[in-house]
């Protein structure tokens, strides 16, 4: 159990890294918490059943939380996507801004894509568009630096690096073959 005798932290500086704290809830699951830039405490509770709850602290009582959302696994994935992917994604985003002319993007292997079930080698992405596939994200797993033998599945997200134009070509390629 964490001791929290100290006064609550001030809202964080903009360039400070968000600290995510982890509290085990025995018999229930794990609670992840962080403080937003505006000073609100946001908690995500991962229940063992796979259900997730998203709560925000009560303004009048910082120890209490308002139950906002109860999410099943599919809901959580959708919400995460709408919010712009993971922390890794955001860091890559910053990287992208530093190297001009280089684009990083996330491409979805749609249901019905000719490459769903095929390998990265099958796409010939490098030869045809000049774009590299640097990671394959599948559910909560990530395959970093995949080889040409890496199998792709529908619903996979590919992290790709290349020229913006090349990335656009790859997106079309993934859809139509």
């Amino acid at each position, binding site marked *: *159990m964490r001791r*929290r005798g100290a006064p609550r932290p001030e809202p964080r500086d903009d360039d400070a890294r968000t600290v995510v704290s982890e509290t085990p*809830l*025995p018999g229930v699951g794990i609670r992840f918490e962080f403080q937003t830039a505006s000073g609100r405490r946001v908690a995500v509770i991962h229940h063992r059943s796979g259900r997730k*709850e998203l*709560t925000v602290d*009560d303004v009048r*009582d*910082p120890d209490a939380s308002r139950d906002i959302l109860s999410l099943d696994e599919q809901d959580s994935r959708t919400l995460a996507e709408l919010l712009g992917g993971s922390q890794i994604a955001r860091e890559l985003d910053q990287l992208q801004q530093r190297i001009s002319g280089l684009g990083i993007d996330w491409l979805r292997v749609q249901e019905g894509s000719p490459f769903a079930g095929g390998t990265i080698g099958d796409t010939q992405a490098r030869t045809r568009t000049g774009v590299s596939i640097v990671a394959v994200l599948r559910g909560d797993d990530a395959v970093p630096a995949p080889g040409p033998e890496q199998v792709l599945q529908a619903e996979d997200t590919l992290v790709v690096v290349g020229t913006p134009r090349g990335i656009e070509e790859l997106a079309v390629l993934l859809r139509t073959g």
Partner: protein
Amino acid sequence: MHGPLFLLELGGVVLLLAVLSRIAGRFGFSPIPLYLLAGLAFGEGGVIPLVTAEAFVESGATIGLVLLLFSLGLEYSAQDLVRSLRDGAAVGGVDIVLNAIPGFLAGLLLGWDVLAATVLGGVTYISSSGVVARILDELGWMGNRETSTVLGILVFEDLAMAVFLPVVSILLTGGQASEIAVEAALAGLLVAGILVLASRYGDVLSRAIVTPSDEAFLLALLGILLVVAGSAEAVNVSAAVGAFLTGIVFSGSAASRARRLIRPLRDVFAGAFFLFFGFQVDPSSIPSVAIPATLLAAVGAASKLATGWWGARRAGVGPRGRRRAGWALVARGEFSIVIAGLAVAAGLEPKLGPLAATYVLLLAVVGPLATHLVHRAGTGSARR
């Protein structure tokens, strides 16, 4: 084969439980007190004593106890228990002192022997993990800061019970001091052995039992569970503790599958367990214990409030959160009955059964209701 009367009686009882469970759900409290009341009405000296179904309910009660504790064990991993022992020892210790001592002293004041008073201490001590966890979830308190403290206390209590139950069952069987020492050592070894097994080889064992068929999985699970519970009972560790430890051994996907499959069985047989406890209590004996039970319930509520307050404050939580933690812990339920049930079955102190039943009846209702009120008051003032 049983005649039609058996089916009619049993069916009537099960239907009644269904109605009671629905009523309790409607008002947001645990069905346990209603099941106990039904047991009082249908048991010895009750309004309509059962004739043919009682033996079945008794067997069902034994299975219900095993399933109740097994599903509790399933909720915890060995790591949870180790962590709660390490981090929660101070709060857990305060919890024992504040909540077990009033029961123990009350037992002595009532002129009972030390063993009966100790059992009463156990009854007043332990919160109902099932009821408390449900309150926290229903009110959306899982995101609150004090919740990890509350859950830590519950785990500690359940562990304490895994030690307490064997000690009491050994003392209840009596015998020479040397025999008792040997039995206690044996029980301690068994408990420690299973815990080590669980933390080291839980995964392997879980994988071994997994089969694609739900039917084969459930039967294997139930078989192992009953055999372990029976062996534990045979060495006086009590079937309940054997079942609890078995639950801890299972982990990962085997545990979540077991939770899903066992739950409906558990709900049915746990109903039988509470009903049967009610059967054993003669309703006419309740008025004579009403006053001590009410006083004890008031003290029991106050002592849990103090425990929650202290524990939450130690975790740096503000006054409102401390109050929430306290009220959440007030509910007593299944485990007080489990502890009292051991003593009742052994024929210890005749007033223990009715006293424990009344105590649980009061606090299983008052705890959740008061917690809901505290919640409503809290959100009301927050909205202004």
